[in-house]
Structure formats: structure tokens, C-alpha cells
């Protein structure tokens, strides 16, 4: 079945092409085609995964693409355990979101196009996941970025959406530049793009001892590649695009900005983990870990003060991605990937639930909601399950994965452990803040008449809820941690389960829930007082640590200023020169025109006149009567005969 | 080297002899026979009062025709009008040049045993058309003109199957000479009527059409065209047309005899008698057909020639060629 892996990205791609070609004339205005594409891909992925459980070997499919000197660029796919896990996540979460979108986007005039974009996105993501070399991973990476741009800007008539899509595209591009440099560095030093060959050479010490600017080459390469992950996975300092990306339709937020695309950065780090691992003194991993920890904590603090339900979730996503990075950086390869998987399910669930709420309330502001638990029971219960999973309450999925990361951090670096624990507390706090604001109490909006969403939206929610609740068990230590057996990095051994760490983690979550309940449900401490007490810290957080302002001042404005200066130069100097040449050409052309008109044309006309006049005279010879010509022939014969006779 | 003066004298004498035979005996007797046969077939008596059993009826008719005034239409083209019957008569009689009548000792009784005898016969048959066309035109009468055109198209069409039949026979015999063809037929079943049966049939049909006899007599269809191309002819010129036509008919019969029935050959009786017997058999056959069958329509007539007889003749030539060669 692994030989058929190439079909997985092709199916959604075909669906995309069909929808682009035939659009609304397809069944379900194209939605069914898209769902069929991703659904078949999901079935294939499940088949491949089951095969992997049976212990199937990694499979590579290589098609010679471009000969390049001694080496060749191959169109290659690789199916191994890491890939199968990602395939499962992408296709299953993806198909749920596709189904959900049928209901959510139902009244949108660009319904078919939306599904085409979704299918294209799924195809690119699957290409990214299946690529067996850096080049194709990069291609999928950029395609995913393109789809992200298209989908964030799906409501392009809204200026904020257009700006957000631009911002997302440009910001991630900064990271991609570093990644591209890293890829080039790999290729120029090792001469190949293929992961297998890269790993083999690095393992054999091909880059050992090489230095770049006083740093070990391998570390530089790994950090450069990680630069791409920072952009794509919205790590500090390139995280600012993700909250803005919430301008897109909610299923897009769920699919791209929670479950799959942002996970691409994590996946990429995991895919090239050997480079990070082999960097001298785990230097690169340390960078990853610190960035991840800072991101996790900082995003969590910002999430606490957000009132827009999707933004809360967006910052939560950033925070959780930081967690994953932290896990990877703390040598928790399996832990990071495990968290990626569980997070994909419950974050998708949360986003879809949020979408359901927005669908019902027509607003994003949690302070305008309230008391929705009665009106929308399905949404409420599934959202609650997602929240519990995210908060890390056992036995829901988030607990198991988060616990592993905390365990790794605890074993490797206490400072980072503390940050992670704080982030866990904050996570539980802000998520329950949302719950209390949204579902508990009574509605604060008087002109809204909330109602439960249609079945096509709630059923995916329930499916995802089941996953969110249960998927964590595959990593449960008392079950022997089967996930760890399935997916692990050679040479790394996970630390043993520790009741202390687990209780600390649950404790942090519980404390967060309790604090949220105290502030927003029982109102023991009014939130306004809390805000005043925090003072400047609150201001700092509320302004998202001034990142956007900093970028505006440091990057955007200088760039714009330079652009304006250049424009001025262009308009007054370069254009002047060009215009001068233009005027000179024009003058010459006028001269030539006179020459043309009176000399060249005159000669041509003279010849024409001569030909015409000659023809006019000669046409009297052309009688059109064969008998005249015959007489001429006879005379000719006479002349010839006479010439022959009287020679 | 041919002795030309002697040759010319011989030719004149022989022509006179043949003409006499044809005009006096064959044509006159032929007309009488025609009327008698017609009478018998139609259960009446036919001419009976002039001479014994009406035998002199044709002589009386000829004398009547000779006495008649020669009328020349004022609008007619005189030269052509007067020449046309001659062309028909001469061409019809010239056909006889190559007919072998029988044997006298070692000599074959034939005017000239041309080595292109069959071709000559066909050529003379085709010359008749010119006379008919000229006569029809020169009369300056629309019935005559239409009759002439019809006649010419019919005769041209039927010349081709006729020539096909002749070619098939010549191929089988290996010679174009009529005497040679007769020599090539030995015995009853050696006659080409058996060995060349399709050619025989084609020849008979085409010959009937060629001499404008029923059922192919549209050119002179009285009910449509008065009398066809000789509507305006009177007296002796009319007689000349009739003479040419009867001469042509008898020549066809004689040619059929020569080509298919073994000519003068036969047991006991002298060759000339056998020849005449066979010839009159064919003549009787033609008369029988004339008094029995209705007339064809013009398109049927042309279709018969071009779509049936001509392809059949070509196919038969192919078969004959195969038989002769292998």
C-alpha cells in the first residue's frame, strides 16, 4: 500500500483541478468532490498507517526529475513512521474540517472556490509531508504558504483581511529566506537534497569541524532551517502574523492555523532532527528550546487579555507550538510530535466550536456572548472537551502529551520547566475564561438569537471531540506508551513517567481553572481590579509586548521611507533620463518620417507608377483571345523556320 | 504491287453485280418477305394481287416510286438533301464488300477479302449515321431533325456493343478477315454461335438497333415523329433510304451468318445455298421480332446499350481473351 502513497497528494490536487475547471456544476457545488478527494486520501493514509503498525519498512519512491551535474534532482516521496503520523493528522482533521465547511460556508458566493483552495492546500501540505528531500519539502512549504495567503485573504473585499494575508505572507517569507539559505548550505556542503543521504553524511561526520563565522557549520545550518520553522510555526519573534490571520474563514483558521500548516515548522524540525541533534553540544536544540519556551509563555500571557474568541485561540496556538518546540529542544522528539498530533485534534475542535459560536452569534467578542451552553449543547460539550484537553486535564489528550514535554523539560532544564509550567497554568486560565464568558451565565447580547448549528457542522465536532478525548491514550505510560514505540528518534530514550511531574502539571492546570472560576464565574476577585493591580504589566501584555509597533517602527516605516525616497529618485532622475532618450528618439523619428515620406515613399511610388503605366500600355497586347496568340505563335514558327533556312 | 486500273475495273464490275443483286433481289424480296411475314404473324394474307401470290408487289411499288415527283422543300439545304440518301445507300451496300457468299471451286466468292474485313464492316455501318443525320438536318423540318438526332445517338450507342461482339469473334478466330473467320469455324458446334454465344446475342441486339428496326425503331416512330429523318423524302430518294436500310439489314444478317453460323459451310448443298439459308433465317428472325415486340422508350434504349450490352461485351472480351491466351 505504501507504493500508492503518491496518490495521497494527487487526489486532493485532482479535486482542486476539477473544481477550478467545473466549479458549481459539480455535485454539491464542488464540495463533494473536495470531500471525496481528501476522504480517499484519509482512507489511504489510514491503510498506510495500519501497515506501519504492522512494522512495514520505510518506503521511498524516486522519480528522476532533473539531471544536475553528477547528482540528480529526484521527485521523491518517503513514507516512514513520522510521515504516517502526519498524514493521519492532516487527512483526518482535514476531512472533518471539509465536512464542517459545507455547513459553515453554505451561503458564501465563492463556495466552490473555497473548496478548491482547501483541496489545493491539502495537496500541498501532503506533498510537504511526503517529500523525501529538502527541495520538495520546500516546494510544499511555499505552496502551503500560498494557500494560506489565498485563504486568509478569502474575504479580500475586507481591507483588514487583505492586509492580514499580506502580512502573513511577508512575515513567513522572512523565515523562509533563512530556511532557503539553510537548504542551499546543506546542498553546497553535502551535494544532495535527500534526507537519507544528508543524514548518512552528517552521521558519518561530513560537516564535523567546519566553521562559519566562529560557529560550527552544522549549528548554523540547523538554526537557519529553524528560521523557517519560526516563520511558519509563528514562533517569537515572527509570530505576529498568526493572530491577524484570523481574518480568514473559521474553518481555515482551524485547518491551517491550528492543525496542520503551522505544524509544518514543527514537522520540519522533526524531519531534520538529526541535524539539530548532531550540532555540537546540542547548540541548535538549545536555541529551539529557548525560543519555544519564550513563545509558549509570552503567547499565553497575551491570550489572557484577548476578547476576540478566535484571537484567544490563535495565541493559544502560538503558545502550544512553543510547547512543541520546547519539547523537541529538550530532546523530546516523540513528546513534541505527540503534542503536535493531540494539539491538532483538539485545536481544530476548538476552532470549529468557536466557528459554530460565531456562526450563531455573528460576533467574535466573548464579552458579548454568554449562556450559550443551553442554546448550543453540542457545541458547548465538544468545546468543553477541547478545552479540557488543551488545559491538560487527565485523561484528555492534552494531558498526556503536555506531561511528556514537562517531563523532558524537568529532566533537562529547570528554568525552562518553570516557564512551561507557568504557561500550562495560563493556558488553563485563559481557556476557562473563554468558557465562562461564552457558555456560562446569561446572554449579554439582546438582539442575538443563538441556535444550534446544523448537523453537518456538529457531527465533525463530535468526531473531533472523540479524538480529543481519546487520542492521548496512545501515549499513556500505563499502556506502555505505544506512540513512543511507533515513533522515536534513534538514540534517544524517553525519561520514565514521574508521578511528581504529572501531579505538578495537573496542579498547574487545576490552579488555572480554579483561578479562572474565581475571577470570571464566582467573581471573588473582579477582573477590573486585577487589571488595575497588574498595571504596566497589563499594558505591556495588552499591547502584545509592542511587537507590532516595534516592527512598524523598525522595519515597516524605514522600508516605506526608503521606498518613497527611491520613488522620488525614480520619478525625477531615472524617468528624466528615460524621457530625454524618448524625446531624442522622437525627434529623430520625425526627421526620418520626412525622409520616408518624400524620399523613400517617393521612390516606391515612382516605381509603382512606372509599373502601372507600363501595364496599362501592355494590357492591350493581352487580348485574352487564344487565336491572336496562335497567330503570334505561327509567326514565331515562320521566323524560326526562315532563320533555319536562310542561315 | 496492286494493279490499279485492273483493280478499279474489277471493283466497278463487282459493285454493279452486288448492287444489282441487292437492289433487285434482296431488297425487293426483302420488302415482300417483310410484308408477307407480317401478314402471317398477324393472321392476314399480306400482298396478294400483283403477280402470283403478290410476288410482283415490290416491283410495282418500285415502279410507282420511280414515277413519283421529286419534291424538294424550299428551305432545305439542297446539296446535302440530295446527297444524304446516297450516303446511306452506298454505305449500306459497301458493307457487302467483305461478305463471303460461298465457294466456287477453290475460290471464295467474296468481293474483296480484306485483311481488316471486320473493321471495314464496322466502319461502313458507322458511316450510315452520317447520311441519316445529314438527311434529317437538310430537310429543315423539326420532325426530321429530331428523328435524325435520335437515330444518330442510337446508332452511335449501339456501334460500341456491335464492335465488342466483332472484336470477341476476331479474337477467337485470330484474324480480322471474314473469310478467315469462316474458315475458323468447323462443324456444327465449331460455329461461333456456340463458342461465342454471348457475342452472338449482343451482336443480334446491337444489329437490330443499328438498322433501326423494331423494337428499336424510335427514329422513325410514326406516332411521334411522322416518319423520322425521311419525312420530307419522296420518290426515288425515299426508295434509296429504304434500299440502304434493307441493304444494311441484309448485310447484318449476312455478317451474323458469316461470323457466327459458319458462313457458307454445310453438308451436301452448295455453299451459296447454305449461306442464303442461314442469312434468311436471321432475316426471318429479325422480322419475327419486328412484328412481335413493342417499341422501346429512348432512355430504356440508351440504358440497354450503355449499362447492359457494353459492360457485358467488355466482360466477354476479357473472358475470350483469357480463353484464347491460356
Amino acid at each position, binding site marked *: 500500500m505504501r507504493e500508492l502513497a503518491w496518490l495521497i497528494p494527487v487526489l486532493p490536487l485532482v479535486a482542486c483541478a476539477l473544481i477550478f475547471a467545473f466549479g458549481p456544476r459539480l455535485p454539491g457545488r464542488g464540495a463533494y468532490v473536495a470531500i471525496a478527494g481528501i476522504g480517499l486520501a484519509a482512507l489511504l493514509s489510514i491503510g498506510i498507517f495500519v501497515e506501519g503498525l504492522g512494522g512495514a519498512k520505510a518506503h521511498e519512491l524516486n522519480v528522476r526529475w532533473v539531471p544536475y551535474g553528477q547528482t540528480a534532482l529526484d521527485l521523491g516521496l518517503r513514507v516512514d513512521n513520522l510521515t504516517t503520523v502526519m498524514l493521519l493528522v492532516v487527512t483526518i482533521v482535514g476531512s472533518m474540517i471539509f465536512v464542517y465547511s459545507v455547513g459553515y460556508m453554505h451561503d458564501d458566493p465563492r463556495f466552490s472556490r473555497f473548496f478548491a483552495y482547501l483541496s489545493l492546500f491539502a495537496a500541498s501540505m501532503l506533498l510537504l509531508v511526503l517529500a523525501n528531500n529538502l527541495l520538495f519539502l520546500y516546494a510544499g512549504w511555499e505552496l502551503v504558504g500560498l494557500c494560506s495567503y489565498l485563504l486568509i485573504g478569502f474575504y479580500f473585499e475586507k481591507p483588514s483581511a487583505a492586509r492580514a494575508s499580506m502580512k502573513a505572507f511577508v512575515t513567513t517569507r522572512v523565515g523562509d529566506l533563512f530556511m532557503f539559505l539553510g537548504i542551499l548550505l546543506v546542498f553546497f556542503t553535502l551535494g544532495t537534497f535527500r534526507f537519507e543521504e544528508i543524514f548518512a553524511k552528517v552521521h558519518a561526520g561530513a560537516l564535523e569541524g567546519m566553521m562559519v563565522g566562529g560557529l560550527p557549520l552544522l549549528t548554523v545550518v540547523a538554526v537557519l532551517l529553524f528560521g523557517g520553522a519560526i516563520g511558519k510555526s509563528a514562533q517569537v519573534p515572527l509570530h505576529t502574523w498568526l493572530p491577524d490571520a484570523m481574518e480568514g474563514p473559521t474553518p481555515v483558521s482551524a485547518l491551517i492555523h491550528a492543525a496542520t500548516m503551522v505544524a509544518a515548522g514543527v514537522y520540519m524540525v522533526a524531519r531534520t532532527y538529526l541535524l539539530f541533534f548532531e550540532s555540537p553540544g546540542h547548540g541548535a536544540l538549545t536555541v529551539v528550546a529557548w525560543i519555544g519556551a519564550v513563545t509558549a509563555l509570552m503567547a499565553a500571557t497575551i491570550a489572557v487579555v484577548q476578547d476576540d474568541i478566535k484571537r484567544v485561540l490563535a495565541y493559544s496556538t502560538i503558545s502550544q507550538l512553543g510547547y512543541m518546540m520546547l519539547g523537541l529542544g529538550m530532546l523530546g522528539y516523540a513528546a513534541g510530535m505527540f503534542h503536535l498530533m493531540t494539539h491538532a485534534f483538539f485545536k481544530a475542535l476548538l476552532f470549529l466550536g468557536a466557528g459554530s459560536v460565531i456562526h450563531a452569534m455573528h460576533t467574535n467578542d466573548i464579552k458579548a456572548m454568554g449562556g450559550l451552553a443551553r442554546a448550543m449543547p453540542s457545541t458547548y460539550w465538544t468545546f468543553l472537551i477541547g478545552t479540557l484537553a488543551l488545559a491538560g486535564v487527565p485523561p484528555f489528550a492534552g494531558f498526556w502529551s503536555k506531561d511528556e514535554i514537562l517531563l523532558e523539560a524537568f529532566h533537562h532544564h529547570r528554568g525552562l520547566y518553570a516557564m512551561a509550567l507557568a504557561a500550562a497554568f495560563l493556558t488553563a486560565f485563559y481557556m476557562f475564561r473563554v468558557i465562562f464568558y461564552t457558555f456560562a451565565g446569561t446572554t449579554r447580547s439582546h438582539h442575538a438569537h443563538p441556535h444550534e448549528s446544523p448537523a453537518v457542522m456538529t457531527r465533525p465536532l463530535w468526531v473531533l471531540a472523540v479524538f480529543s478525548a481519546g487520542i492521548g491514550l496512545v501515549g499513556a505510560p500505563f499502556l506502555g506508551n505505544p506512540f513512543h514505540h511507533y515513533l522515536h528518534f534513534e538514540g534517544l530514550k524517553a525519561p520514565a513517567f514521574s508521578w511528581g511531574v504529572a501531579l505538578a502539571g495537573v496542579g498547574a492546570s487545576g490552579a488555572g481553572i480554579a483561578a479562572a472560576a474565581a475571577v470570571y464565574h464566582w467573581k471573588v476577585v473582579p477582573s477590573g481590579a486585577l487589571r488595575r493591580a497588574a498595571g504596566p504589566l497589563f499594558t505591556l501584555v495588552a499591547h502584545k509586548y509592542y511587537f507590532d509597533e516595534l516592527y512598524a517602527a523598525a522595519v515597516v516605516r524605514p522600508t516605506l521611507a526608503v521606498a518613497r525616497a527611491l520613488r522620488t529618485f525614480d520619478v525625477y532622475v531615472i524617468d528624466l533620463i528615460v524621457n530625454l532618450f524618448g524625446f531624442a528618439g522622437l525627434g529623430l523619428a520625425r526627421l526620418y518620417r520626412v525622409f520616408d515620406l518624400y524620399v523613400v515613399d517617393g521612390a516606391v511610388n515612382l516605381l509603382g507608377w512606372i509599373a502601372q503605366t507600363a501595364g496599362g500600355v501592355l494590357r492591350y497586347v493581352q487580348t485574352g*483571345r487564344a*487565336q491572336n496568340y496562335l497567330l503570334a505563335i*505561327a509567326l514565331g514558327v515562320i521566323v524560326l523556320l526562315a532563320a533555319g533556312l536562310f542561315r | 504491287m496492286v494493279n490499279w486500273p485492273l483493280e478499279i475495273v474489277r471493283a466497278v464490275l463487282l459493285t454493279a453485280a452486288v448492287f444489282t443483286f441487292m437492289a433487285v433481289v434482296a431488297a425487293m424480296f426483302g420488302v415482300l418477305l417483310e410484308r408477307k411475314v407480317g401478314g402471317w404473324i398477324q393472321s392476314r394474307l399480306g400482298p396478294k394481287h400483283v403477280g402470283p401470290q403478290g410476288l410482283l408487289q415490290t416491283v410495282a411499288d418500285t415502279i410507282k416510286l420511280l414515277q413519283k415527283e421529286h419534291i424538294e422543300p424550299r428551305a432545305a439545304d439542297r446539296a446535302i438533301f440530295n446527297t444524304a440518301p446516297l450516303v446511306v445507300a452506298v454505305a449500306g451496300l459497301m458493307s457487302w464488300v467483305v461478305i463471303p457468299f460461298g465457294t466456287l471451286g477453290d475460290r471464295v466468292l467474296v468481293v474483296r477479302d480484306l485483311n481488316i474485313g471486320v473493321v471495314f464492316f464496322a466502319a461502313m455501318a458507322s458511316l450510315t449515321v452520317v447520311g441519316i443525320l445529314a438527311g434529317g438536318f437538310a430537310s429543315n423540318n423539326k420532325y426530321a431533325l429530331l428523328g435524325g438526332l435520335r437515330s444518330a445517338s442510337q446508332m452511335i450507342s449501339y456501334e460500341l456493343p456491335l464492335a465488342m461482339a466483332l472484336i470477341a469473334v476476331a479474337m477467337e478466330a485470330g484474324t480480322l478477315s471474314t473469310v478467315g473467320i469462316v474458315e475458323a469455324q468447323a462443324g456444327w458446334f465449331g460455329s461461333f454461335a456456340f463458342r461465342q454465344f454471348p457475342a452472338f446475342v449482343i451482336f443480334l441486339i446491337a444489329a437490330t438497333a443499328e438498322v433501326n428496326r423494331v423494337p428499336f425503331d424510335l427514329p422513325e416512330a410514326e406516332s411521334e415523329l411522322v416518319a423520322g429523318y425521311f419525312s420530307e423524302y419522296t420518290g426515288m430518294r425515299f426508295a434509296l433510304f429504304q434500299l440502304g436500310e434493307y441493304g444494311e439489314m441484309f448485310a447484318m444478317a449476312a455478317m451474323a451468318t458469316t461470323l457466327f453460323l459458319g458462313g457458307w459451310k454445310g453438308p451436301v448443298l452448295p455453299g451459296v445455298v447454305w449461306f442464303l439459308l442461314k442469312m434468311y433465317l436471321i432475316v426471318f428472325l429479325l422480322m419475327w421480332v419486328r412484328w412481335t415486340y413493342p417499341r422501346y422508350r429512348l432512355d430504356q434504349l440508351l440504358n440497354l446499350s450503355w449499362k447492359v450490352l457494353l459492360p457485358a461485351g467488355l466482360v466477354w472480351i476479357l473472358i475470350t481473351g483469357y480463353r484464347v491466351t491460356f
Partner: protein
Amino acid sequence: MTLGLTHFLVLSTLLFCLGLFAMLTRRNAVAILMGVELMLNAANINLVAFNKYVAPGALNGQVFALVVITLAACEAGVGLALVMSAYRNLETVHVDEINVMKW
């Protein structure tokens, strides 16, 4: 004076020139065709005469005369068909009146 090649050549020359004259001067297309026939016959006389007097060993001259007769038949058929067609469409057979293609 015995009959020689020259006699026939003179006859054919005169015939040829008469045919040419017809072609040069007649207006009626059919008459022009008749002139062509005369010229072809003149050529045939030449062919047969040369065959007898110059190369009697082979019959090529007569063979070619036959070919010419055949082609003359073709020419007459096609030519007269053209005349009929022209007459039907233009209602004239005079070659100097058939000038719809002329400037």
C-alpha cells in the same frame, strides 16, 4: 515519277496549313475543333508516310497514328463537352465572345 515520300509530305503540309487557317480565323469553337482534327490528320499522314518510307522495319509510325486517333477522339469528346457547357452558360460558341474573365 513514282509515288514518293515528298508527295505525302506536301499533302500533309497543305492539310496542316488549312487546319491552322481554320484555327486562326474561325469564330465558332466547333469549327476550330475541326481545324484541329485536320492538323492531327496531317500529322498522322506524316507518321504513316515516314513509317513506310523512312523506317519500314517497325510499325511505330502506324502505332502512333492510332494513338493520335485515340487522343483525337478524347480531344473531340472533351472539347465538344466544353463547347456544350459554354453554350449552356454563355449562350454562344464564338470564342471571341467568351470573355467573361477578360479585364
